[in-house]
């Protein structure tokens, strides 16, 4: 355990110390203090719609099963048998009535209670099958906000709604974009590994200076790309990729027009990404018109315009979720080791919207988060180079002072309209809070 003074020094006001990205002991502490106590995004309702449905995933470094119960509530179970620690379930998802260990056939009910131990008569009297320590240890709390499932292993702490704060608006907006008010995770996903600390992903996602440099090669190539549409375009891309790649080529002035908002819980979001008209919301075509009409039929003209006009790009829920409501996507951060992280990307079908709207979300996900993405691969490369640099020990502290003088208080949040490193300061504050021994 680190003392409060050490915590405050590591997450200093002007920047994090390098060892927060390289020291395995600090990583272990982060797993205990943050990923086993704060609200960690686990999955979406539509992944486990029916009783007995489960997915195998991770909560920090712990392998877990998210299981739909017969009473439709949700449980997060450890995927390790309490006998020998064996991984119980080896498939990614499925439907079951119980979890039976492949090693000695200990059987657990859907709620994690131990039900069957072969040869139980050989155990001493001190062995009690009802002993809670023999149940699959589950997260003490599992809560959902409109289908977004989070878990915390701490018995006490803020409830999910308070933890999310204004980030509920991003989830609301994503739901509101469905004419039926319902979304379904669909279309496959990506899982991409980078050699770097987990914090680097969220620190990059709302950084408005890097795109002009890191993504220059894709911006330039997209701008220089010859026009011309092949017969395959309708099947492949419908012009999306070039537009997305070029959109990172905003001028410094455009980037400065983007509002950055940092919430006290560590979350942050960008607003105004589309002001310059580079991306879809201002465009229109047959699919968008059909979609808009469906949305207006559900919500009325005024509200539909407001829903479609909500212009927040990366909505970072600290520590592990990124919601992009406009393109119906999420990205999830999975720490693996102090210097290794996995990012998974998923998209949603908006019920009641034309298929074409879903296809665009699928394409957006592919262009942005595929391991072969011309955009994301450069980010991953930079994360690797930051990690490699920090591991040399040459830098004591990273610098996150950009824009510090322009941060403005907006209620209990911070706001900036320069290309500020405000999101880094917001995240570092949350890190200080959760890592502190008294939290």
């Amino acid at each position: 355990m680190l003392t409060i003074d050490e915590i405050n020094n590591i997450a200093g006001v002007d920047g994090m110390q390098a060892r927060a990205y390289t020291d395995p002991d600090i990583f272990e502490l982060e797993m205990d203090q943050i990923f086993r106590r704060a609200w960690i995004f686990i999955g979406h309702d539509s992944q486990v719609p029916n009783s007995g449905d489960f997915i195998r995933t991770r909560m920090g470094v712990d392998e877990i099963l998210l299981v739909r119960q017969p009473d439709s509530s949700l449980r997060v179970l450890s995927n390790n048998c309490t006998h020998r620690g064996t991984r119980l379930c080896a498939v990614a998802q499925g439907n079951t009535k119980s979890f039976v260990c492949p090693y000695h056939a200990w059987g657990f009910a859907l709620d994690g209670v131990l039900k069957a131990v072969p040869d139980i008569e050989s155990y001493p009297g001190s062995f009690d099958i009802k002993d809670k320590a023999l149940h699959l240890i589950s997260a003490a709390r599992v809560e959902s906000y409109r289908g977004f499932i989070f878990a915390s292993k701490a018995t006490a702490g803020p409830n999910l709604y308070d933890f999310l704060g204004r980030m509920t608006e991003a989830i609301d907006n994503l739901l509101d974009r469905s004419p039926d008010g319902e979304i379904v995770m669909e279309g496959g996903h990506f899982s991409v590994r980078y050699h770097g600390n987990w914090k680097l992903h969220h620190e990059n996602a709302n950084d408005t200076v890097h795109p002009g440099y890191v993504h220059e090669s894709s911006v330039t190539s997209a701008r220089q790309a010859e026009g011309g549409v092949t017969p395959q375009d309708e099947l492949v891309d419908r012009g999306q990729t070039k537009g997305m790649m070029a959109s990172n080529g905003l001028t410094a002035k455009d980037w400065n027009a983007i509002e950055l908002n940092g919430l006290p819980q560590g979350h942050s979001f960008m607003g105004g990404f589309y002001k310059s008209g580079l991306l879809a919301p201002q465009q229109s075509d047959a699919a968008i018109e059909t979609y808009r009409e469906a949305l207006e039929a559900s919500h009325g003209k005024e509200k539909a315009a407001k829903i479609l006009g909500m212009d927040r790009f990366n909505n970072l829920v600290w520590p592990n979720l990124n919601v992009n409501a406009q393109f119906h996507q999420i990205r999830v951060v999975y720490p693996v080791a102090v210097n290794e992280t996995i990012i998974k990307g998923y998209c949603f079908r908006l019920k009641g919207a034309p298929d074409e709207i879903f296809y665009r979300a699928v394409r957006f996900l592919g262009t942005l988060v595929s391991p072969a993405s011309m955009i994301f691969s450069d980010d991953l490369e930079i994360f690797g180079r930051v990690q490699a640099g920090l591991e040399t020990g040459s830098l004591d502290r990273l610098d996150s002072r950009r824009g510090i003088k322009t941060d403005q208080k907006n209620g209990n949040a911070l706001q900036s309209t320069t290309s500020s490193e405000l999101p880094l300061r917001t995240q570092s504050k949350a890190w200080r809070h959760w890592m502190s021994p008294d939290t």
Partner: protein
Amino acid sequence: MSLIQEVSSFLTHEADLLDQGNFEAWLELYEDDALYWVPSSPEQTDMKGQVSIMLEDVPLLKLRVRRLSHPRAYAVTPKPATIHLIGNINASEEDSLVMVSSKLIMTQVRDNVATSLSGAVTHHLKRSEGGFGIKLKRVDLIEAGGTFSAISVPL
């Protein structure tokens, strides 16, 4: 030359161009209306409603190749060295198309780190004056569905 020999020599040529980093010449092997597809899961048939690792027509392949030669394309700076190894080739001719199946092992070394990808490849080739033109290339990676590091060089 037998069909297998013809096809084998064409696929080897394609692999050599990729390993030489001669992506412009590699692109010239593709017909104007070609499709290049690396599905995200085995048996994938849906191009629109399911994500693909790569799904590109010729204009997008050109864009990708243009980026590969950009001096600040960091993911490929320094450039990886690759070996595209082709084997288990089968081919049959149906009407105007030659349908080819093969196996690919691609090993990449960059910054002293070696990674590899393996898969089953389908080519649909059209006979043309100089030999063949690629109408479709589909690579079904055995790693599909799992966790990948960044893929920067075409398969």
